[in-house]
């Protein structure tokens, strides 16, 4: 694996559980030793440095707040450990607390805080000593869904404001797409693709990336000499397209329709060219064509939205005619 962050970047490590993303993060932090290879922070090889000497800050999935200390002491902890002068500490704490709006919580113990407050305290503790790199290990996964959206927003704003290089581990593609400047999609200890959210979504490097990103995932059907992929949202009834783009027409026998409000999910089996392949179409509510289960419809995919993969290596190959 070869992965370099850019200065001030928000890099997301995304992958299913067990893909090695947390292990990678822990190696960067110095909590685990790589069997081979080098890790550089700010151009300096840090393999032999203990975690405390790496100028990093980490926010754990569990937040790891020290339960026997008040919020104030939690935030002061890294400063004291660094041997900062006593009179400078309150200033720094004030700054970090203001950054996250937790000034009123300083006297409390972690157990008296809500999930969102704990997360902010954990972030404040990480920010307070102004690290070279921020490491975040699924910091939002303990929050409920409603809080998560606003926490995501806060997190990004704060990262933009302080401009510290950030490495963020998650298995949640929405977090990854929403937060990352770039995303490293990982599987089985390897980086499958590194790119901006647009790149990894629109131009997946292999079938894993194609089917891991997107909800529902990309349809992948077998052609005689290659694999063909297309996103459910590009697979619409023929009459939803108004000419212009060159289309690939596909017959679809609909087996089930799910109405989800903003869009409809249409499950079906292809006819004709990819006979028998199960596929999924996602029709936005702006497409009003009536679709019923048990009937056959003419669907189509714009030709440029077709992605081709090698059936052996499962890597992306050049576009070809279908």
């Amino acid at each position, binding site marked *: 694996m070869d992965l370099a962050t850019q200065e001030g970047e928000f890099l997301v490590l995304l992958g299913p559980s067990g893909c090695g993303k947390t292990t990678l993060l822990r190696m960067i*932090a*110095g*909590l685990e030793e790589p069997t081979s290879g080098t890790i550089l922070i700010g151009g300096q090889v840090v393999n032999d440095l*203990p*975690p*405390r000497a*790496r100028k*990093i*800050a*980490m926010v*754990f*999935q*569990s*937040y*790891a*707040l*020290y*339960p*026997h200390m008040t919020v104030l002491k939690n935030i002061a*902890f*890294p400063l004291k*450990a*660094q041997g900062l002068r006593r009179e400078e500490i309150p200033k720094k704490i004030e700054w970090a607390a203001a950054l996250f709006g937790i000034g009123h919580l300083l006297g409390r*113990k*972690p*157990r*008296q*805080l809500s*999930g969102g407050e*704990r997360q902010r305290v954990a972030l404040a*503790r990480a920010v307070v*000593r102004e690290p070279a790199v921020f490491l975040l290990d699924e910091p939002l996964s*303990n929050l409920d869904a409603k809080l998560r959206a606003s926490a995501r927003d806060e997190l990004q704003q704060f990262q933009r404001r302080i401009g510290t290089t950030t490495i963020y581990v998650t298995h949640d593609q929405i977090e990854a797409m929403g937060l990352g400047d770039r995303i490293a999609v990982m599987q089985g200890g390897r980086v499958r693709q590194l790119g901006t959210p647009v790149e990894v979504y629109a131009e997946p490097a292999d079938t894993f990336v194609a089917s891991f990103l997107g909800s529902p995932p990309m349809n992948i059907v077998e052609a005689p000499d290659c694999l063909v992929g297309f996103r459910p949202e590009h697979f619409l009834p023929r009459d939803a397209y108004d000419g212009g783009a060159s289309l690939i027409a596909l017959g679809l026998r609909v087996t089930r329709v799910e109405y989800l409000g903003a869009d409809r999910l249409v499950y079906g089996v292809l006819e004709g060219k990819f006979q028998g392949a199960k596929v999924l179409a996602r029709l936005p509510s702006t497409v009003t064509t009536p679709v019923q289960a048990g009937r056959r419809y003419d669907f189509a995919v714009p030709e440029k939205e077709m992605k081709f993969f090698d059936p052996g290596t499962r890597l992306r190959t050049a576009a070809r005619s279908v």
Partner: protein
Amino acid sequence: MAARPTVRRLAGRGGHLGLIGLFTVFSAFPFYWMLITTFKRTSDLLKRGNNPFVYNQPPTLENLRVLFYDTLYVQWLANTFFVGLLVVLITLVLAVPAGYALARLTGRVGEHLGIAIFLTYLVPPTLLFIPMSRLIADLGLQDSLWSLVVVYPSFTVPFCTWLLMGFFKAIPRDLEEAAMIDGYSRLGAFVKVVIPISVAGILTVIIFTLTLVMQEFVYALTFITAARHFTVSVGVPTFLVHGDVYFWGSLMAGCFIASVPIAVLYNFFVDRFIAGFTAGAIK
């Protein structure tokens, strides 16, 4: 219909209180028994027709007088606390790092090693005092309280190591790792974060060690010969049981005075520290 849930709730609460009452009586009765016996006249104790649960004759301080003036009870108490304190210190110095190491650093091997260490606790002193007495003689510690200071850790350390191992395992690794990233070495993280969180465990170890030391009998009986070096557990039965004559009042007074501090420690500290001490660390 409306009345039924109320009846059921009352019955439930009654059962709850009844159960608590039962346990309270069960735990408190020995103390009550020791306390009333302490102040009973011997004739009151021995007369068969008397109600044993109350005073049939006026209470007396005679038993306490015997305990404090006719025996070396105060000296024995001092001896017991002297040995107890030193053994607690030795136990903490050895068991805290050992328990932590077993919980964290050696992985699966640590678990087996922990069990093996615990097993040594199960070898009874009645078996070990024979080789131990040779050792004590070689060290020249016969009839000295130091012999107990040296020997007692042989059973307190294994048990407390095992106990602390459990406590340390319950502390999330994240906390230490956070402290290591925040600027401490592993040792620093241990001292600054793990130890303060484990106060409950360490307190348990202290109380447990004190209890073991106070009740230990075999080693104290075999290694100590002079009365002024006795601990409470040996002194009281040796001097207050003459053949088949039991000085019940003084015996009970001796036991009561020795057991109260431990009971107080248990009741007032352990609960408070265990409850919710680690709450809020994670999740």
